[in-house]
């Protein structure tokens, strides 16, 4: 039951993009086509789960025993940057097909604030290892849900006749606002 709550809360109620404002750059940047949105969502899911697991272990078995939790930001970002490189190298060797699909998105992920954000949030919320993993998966799902929905809308939007100064980013933000408003309807499901 606890896990169900974490999932519903992260995917719908506290959606990472639309209510927490993390990962806006890829949300606006790679949402022109549904295909690329799927690729990005896949890559984020992959890295987010691994990164959250590794940073959890790091926080509880290295930083806290040594009494240096203030080094969190420095260590987490380095670990994530190294991890992304590692995942890229391993994927290239083990599964060329998956690498082809996710490849171009992986380097972008280092500066995607969802990864570091979720890692820090999982630590702040005092989750245990399994809860952290569930939290990471459901946040990645929430990110994917928002990104893919948004890219579907934007594909249709290309056909719409809108004022010149609204074209591109401004209209994208307004659509995102409407989408966020729709997601506000989920508020109150989970306390």
């Amino acid at each position: 039951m606890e896990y169900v709550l974490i999932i519903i809360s992260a995917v719908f109620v506290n959606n990472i993009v639309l209510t927490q404002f993390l990962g806006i750059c890829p949300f606006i940047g790679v949402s022109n086509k549904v295909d690329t949105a799927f690729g990005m969502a896949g890559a984020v899911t992959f890295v987010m789960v691994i990164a959250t697991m590794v940073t959890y272990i790091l926080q509880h078995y290295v930083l806290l025993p040594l009494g240096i939790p203030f080094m969190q930001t420095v260590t987490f970002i380095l670990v994530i940057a190294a991890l992304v490189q590692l995942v890229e190298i391993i994927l290239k060797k083990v599964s060329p097909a998956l690498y082809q699909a996710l490849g171009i998105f992986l380097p972008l992920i280092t500066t995607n604030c969802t990864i570091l954000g979720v890692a820090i949030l999982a630590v702040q919320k005092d989750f245990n290892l399994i809860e952290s993993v569930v939290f990471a998966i459901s946040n990645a799902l929430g990110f994917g849900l928002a990104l893919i929905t948004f890219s579907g809308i934007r594909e249709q939007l290309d056909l719409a006749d809108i004022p010149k100064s609204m074209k591109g980013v401004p209209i994208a933000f307004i659509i995102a606002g409407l989408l966020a408003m729709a997601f506000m309807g989920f508020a109150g499901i989970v306390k």
Partner: protein
Amino acid sequence: MSNLKNFAKGFVKENPVFVLFLGLCPTLGTTSSALNGLGMGLATTFVLAMSNLVISLVASVIPDKVRIPSFIVIIASFVTIVDLLMSAYTNTPGPNGEPSLYDQLGIFIPLIVVNCIVLGRAEAFASKNSVFSSLLDGLGMGLGFAFALTLLGSVREILGSGSVFGFKFIQGDGILMFVSPPGAFLALGFLIMLMNKWKQKIV
């Protein structure tokens, strides 16, 4: 003259938020009021100026291959400094029990480290230019970012609760939606639209 240009370009011509669309997460996430926007903007300015300064000092001795990780470590160190300073000095709750600035900015303070503006300026400017112009560039870009955040925060605060920096000048409740998440997206969308319209007129 060129020094002045390095400093001033961040405000309008190359404004990180309205023109380059960098650092959008804190832009949306921390602008529920003008004060929060300004606080976030100044914290980012500090990190940006200091990391630009240090990176331009050490750029010539860092091997090209480990450039990005080294920059990230330098930036992360300054973010940690800001985080510790803010938790020490801006952590007192308001008179009516409202959360402190540190609590309101919350996770966005450590996330300055992944703000694309900081790494972007390090890579595009500080690693290639002299120490003084890098410092000016960092300050200008940071203040431009702070300006954008304060502007967006003020717009949202005026519409949402009829006040600026906490001074209430419109009676009543205001449009609450502008303080909540959808309002952030809508307000920024319309601000960028106005900016575009203004630029078209000038050209």
